[in-house]
């Protein structure tokens, strides 16, 4: 199976940084803040690959750097260093020029944010939100746009008659589903999901998780799934990485990680699942 995403040595430091930042932070140091210069090492030396059709889980406590990894890959945040290769794109994604950056975000990747406000214009209709993505990839005919938007909303189980309503008037679960529809609009090869079931009640959570499973099976898209909930990861991810203080402390097949966790932090996580 071919590699869709390859990440090597991804590092993001917030602050001025000093030569000893990396050495004075991390798992051993028990902090992600450099005691010498006060910079925050959000993530450092993160390396992994995602195969075609694979779901990779990324777990860890709040502030461990999970979202930063996603945001660096999606080019929302400028990484300090590292190498990211995406299938079909020549060279380092992180070093791409402005034109190719836009191209990468429009055509090759889809992102679902934890907070729907970041991924959606709440005062533009659900259909309009999806149309924005479709226009970016070259759709021009209004009829074709509406047909495609309707089918995406149907796929994410939003009643088509709500297409012309504002996401502001939607429930949290529905907003999340509109975000998923929008992220899928450009047929991305890589889908980045950041805590997509946060704050939703369990039945809606279940619907969203089932939806992601179905979409993955139908489209074969590769997914990086960030969650602090081990149960979500166990349900969806083939392989899982555990992050703490900006570093990957353990990774493995999801069943290995659950049954035979090695790192103290992973053992703590597994033992804390209700």
């Amino acid at each position: 199976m071919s590699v869709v995403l390859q990440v090597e040595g991804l590092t993001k430091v917030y602050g001025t940084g000093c030569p000893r930042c990396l050495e004075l932070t991390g798992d051993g140091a028990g902090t992600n803040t450099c005691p010498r210069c006060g910079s925050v090492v959000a993530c450092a030396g993160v390396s992994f690959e995602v195969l075609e059709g694979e779901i990779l889980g990324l777990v860890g406590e709040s502030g461990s750097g999970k979202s930063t990894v996603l945001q660096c890959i999606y080019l929302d945040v400028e990484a300090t260093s590292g190498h990211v290769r995406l299938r079909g794109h020549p060279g380092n994604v992180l070093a791409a020029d402005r034109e190719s950056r836009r191209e990468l975000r429009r055509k090759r990747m889809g992102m679902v944010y934890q907070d729907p406000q970041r991924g959606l214009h709440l005062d533009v209709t659900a259909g309009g939100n999806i149309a924005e993505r479709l226009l970016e990839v070259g759709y021009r005919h209004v009829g074709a746009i509406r047909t495609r938007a309707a089918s995406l909303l149907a796929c994410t189980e939003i009643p088509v008659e709500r297409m012309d309503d504002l996401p502001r008037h939607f429930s949290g679960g529905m907003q999340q589903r509109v975000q998923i529809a929008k992220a899928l609009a450009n047929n991305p090869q890589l889908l980045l999901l950041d805590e997509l079931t946060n704050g939703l009640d369990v039945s809606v959570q279940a619907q969203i998780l089932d939806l992601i499973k179905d979409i993955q099976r139908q489209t074969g898209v590769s997914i990086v799934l960030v969650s602090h909930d081990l149960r979500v990861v166990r349900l969806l991810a083939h392989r899982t990485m555990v992050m703490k203080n900006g570093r990957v402390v353990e990774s493995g097949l999801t069943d290995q990680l659950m049954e035979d966790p090695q790192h103290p932090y992973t053992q703590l996580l597994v033992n804390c699942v209700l």
Partner: protein
Amino acid sequence: MIEVVELDKTFCMHLLGGKEVHALKGVTFSVGKGEFLGVAGRSGSGKSTLLKCIYRTCRPTGGSILYASSDGVVDMALIPDLEVVGVRREMGYVTQFLRPVPRVTALDMVAEPLRDRGVDGVTARREAMFLLDQLGLPSSLWDSFPVLFSGGEQQKVNIARALITRPRLLLLDEPTAALDQASRMRVAAILEEAKEAGVTMIGVFHDREMLYRLADRVLHLDEGKVKGFSGKEGPSMRGGKNDPPHSRIENMAPTLWE
């Protein structure tokens, strides 16, 4: 087919101050192609851990597990995770307990491993129906959720999931413990059929009847070590002369009630 050499597995529990449990100590044995190796031993002797190491759910601490896959010999103790995924495609693993996936019907759960291997939904479901029927799971349950099933019914789903891919190697962890006598006989017949088809099997059983009916050889584990092997001669081989089967219970009873 499988050669296990000096296999060690130690669990280190960091939450308990680094307490260590030595589950397997220098376990060595081999299984020929088409052979059925039974594994016996008291609870906690390392039987399940042994199977988990072979499937690489547990990561061995030392030793090697050489497996003759269809693509050549690999060491399951060492190969990278992504390779494990490939090798697992030719293995079937009946775990001790089914972990039911919420909101997935019995039929879809059984069909899933085939669908993961690219078989279309209709064929996979037809195959699943055939197996569940053979195992005697009432058809009225096929489209219900296994979360709600009895232990025995769940176990039938579990067995069907492992068999549906026609694996080359089948790992069985107490597959019949939760089943009634009639269902056990059905499972025994199905496993015998698989054996005739050339499937290699390693099976953990507490039930001696099943163990000696199915196994060509039995590996006895005691506190993580290989205590010995016994052959087809049957239950007469159990234990050593110095260790009659019920001595432990008899010795324990008085202290329990004093």
